[in-house]
C-alpha cells in the first residue's frame, strides 16, 4: 500500500484534482481555525477569515511553490494577511465583507463550538498580558512558534521573511517576554502551551 501523499503533493495535485484539494483542506482546516481562534474575538470573524483564506488558496494553487515551503505555513501566511486586512477594514463600510460571509455558513452548534475553541485557545491571563505587551512583530513571532507550533523556518515563511531575520526577531521576542513575565512576578520556568514549550 503506497504511503499517503504529503501535504505538498496534495497542494500540487489539487491544481488538477478537486479531491486532492479537499484532502488538503481536511488536513489543514483545523490548524487554520486554531490559528484564527487565537487571534479573533468571535466566531464570525473566524468563519469569515477561514473562508477567505481558502478561497485565496484555491485561486493561488497554480502559484504555490513547494521550493518556498510547505502548505501549512503558506496557508497561515494567507490567513495572517487576510486577518491584517480585515482589521484594517474595521470600521469601514466594506462591500467585500458584506459579500464574503463565512459566518453565513455557521449554525448554532458551530457558533458554540467556535466560541469554546476561542476560549480554549486563550492563553493564561498573565501570559496573554505579557504577549500583548510585545511589539506586533515580536508577538507574532512568539505565537507562531509556540501556540501555532511552527518551526522557526516555517514561521519565517508564514511571515514572508528570511529565516535569519526571523531567528533574530524570535530571540529578541523571547527575551522581551521573559523580562515581562519576570517583571510581573510570574514563573520564569518554561511555560507550556497546549502544544509546546513557549521558551524552547
Amino acid at each position, binding site marked *: 500500500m503506497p504511503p499517503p501523499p504529503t501535504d505538498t503533493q496534495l497542494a500540487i495535485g489539487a491544481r488538477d484534482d478537486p479531491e486532492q484539494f479537499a484532502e488538503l483542506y481536511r488536513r489543514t*482546516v483545523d490548524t487554520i481555525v486554531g490559528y484564527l481562534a487565537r487571534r479573533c474575538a468571535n466566531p464570525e470573524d473566524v468563519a469569515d477569515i477561514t*473562508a477567505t483564506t481558502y*478561497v485565496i488558496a484555491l*485561486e493561488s494553487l497554480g502559484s504555490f511553490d513547494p521550493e518556498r515551503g510547505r502548505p501549512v505555513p503558506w496557508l497561515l501566511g494567507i490567513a495572517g494577511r487576510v486577518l491584517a486586512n480585515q482589521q*484594517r477594514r474595521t*470600521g469601514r463600510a466594506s462591500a*467585500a465583507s458584506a459579500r464574503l460571509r463565512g459566518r453565513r455558513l455557521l449554525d448554532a452548534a458551530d457558533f458554540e463550538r467556535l466560541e469554546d475553541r476561542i476560549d480554549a485557545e486563550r492563553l493564561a491571563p498573565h501570559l496573554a498580558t505579557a504577549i500583548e505587551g510585545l511589539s*506586533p512583530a515580536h508577538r507574532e513571532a512568539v505565537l507562531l512558534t509556540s501556540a501555532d507550533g511552527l518551526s522557526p523556518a516555517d514561521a519565517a515563511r508564514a511571515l514572508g521573511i528570511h529565516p535569519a531575520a526571523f*531567528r533574530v526577531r524570535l530571540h529578541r521576542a523571547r527575551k522581551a517576554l521573559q523580562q515581562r513575565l519576570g517583571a510581573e512576578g510570574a514563573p520564569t520556568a518554561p511555560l507550556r502551551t497546549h502544544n509546546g514549550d513557549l521558551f524552547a
Partner: protein
Amino acid sequence: MTKHETFEDRLLGNLLDEWSPAGPGKATHRGRTAAAVGGPLLAAGVVGALLLPSAHSDGRGVATTAAPAANGSTGTVDVRPITDRVNDAMAKAHDVIIHADQTTWAHEDRSDRGTRSEMWSDAAGFGFRDIEYGADGHKVVDAGSMAGTEGTTQHRSVDIGSRTVTEWSTPTPPNRGGETLIGDLRDARPVGTETIDGVTTTHLLDGEPGMNREIWVDASSLLPVRMTAHGTWGAYRIDYDWLARTDANRAQLLPVAPDGYRVVQRTSVPDARGLAEQQDPGTK
C-alpha cells in the same frame, strides 16, 4: 448516527463548487472577475485577494477603493477616521526604506537602562536588517538581507563574538513584499499637535487594550514618526524614519563589514536553525 455537518464541512462544499483546473501559471486571482466565475463566495474572495499583496505588486496590500491622498493634495477633504487615514498612508508608502529605532524598558517607568535595537525594511521589495545592542551600547547582532537586480538576494551577518562576517546569496523569492515595522492602528483618536525634531505631528492615542499606546504621525504625510507604549510589562519607544528608496538608503539593509573582521563566503543557504548556524561558519 449521522455526523453533524459543521461549518468546515459546508465551507468545503462551497469551495469545491468553485474549484476549476489551475495548472502552474494558470491560476490568477487578478485575472478572473467575480462576474465571470459567479458565486458570492469566490466573488468576495477575489475582492479579498485584491486587498492582499498581489503577485505583481510590491507586496504591501493596497485597498482597491480610491481614496483621497492622505495629505489632501487632491483638494478634497478626507473625512474618514484618522485610524483609516493613517493605515492607508502606511499601506501606500511604497517607495521607502523604513527605519525603526526602538528602546525597550523592563520597567513601565523607564527606570532601567533599557535595550536598544534598530530595524530597516524595504517597503517595495525583499530587504530587512536587524541590529540588537547590548547593555553597553555595542552591537550584539547585526544581520541583513537585500534583494539585488539579478534575481538574487544578498545576505550578510556580522558575528561580533568571532569578529566574522558571513556573506551568501539566494534566489530572490517571488512575491516577497516589505515589512511595515508597525502594525495597523486599531482605534486612534487625535489629542493634539506637537513638534518632534522639527516635524509637526498629530498626537494620537490608540485604543489597544492594556498598551497605553501613543503615536505621533507627520501632520502632512500621516506616516508615524514615533510610537510609545507602556504597561505592567514595561515600556518601549520607537522612532520611525521613512527614507526615500535611494541606493544609499537601500545600502542600509546590509551591514558593512567592520575593519579587521574576517569575511566568509558561504555557498549554501542557512537551514532552519537560522542565525545560530550562520554565526558558526566553521560548521560548513
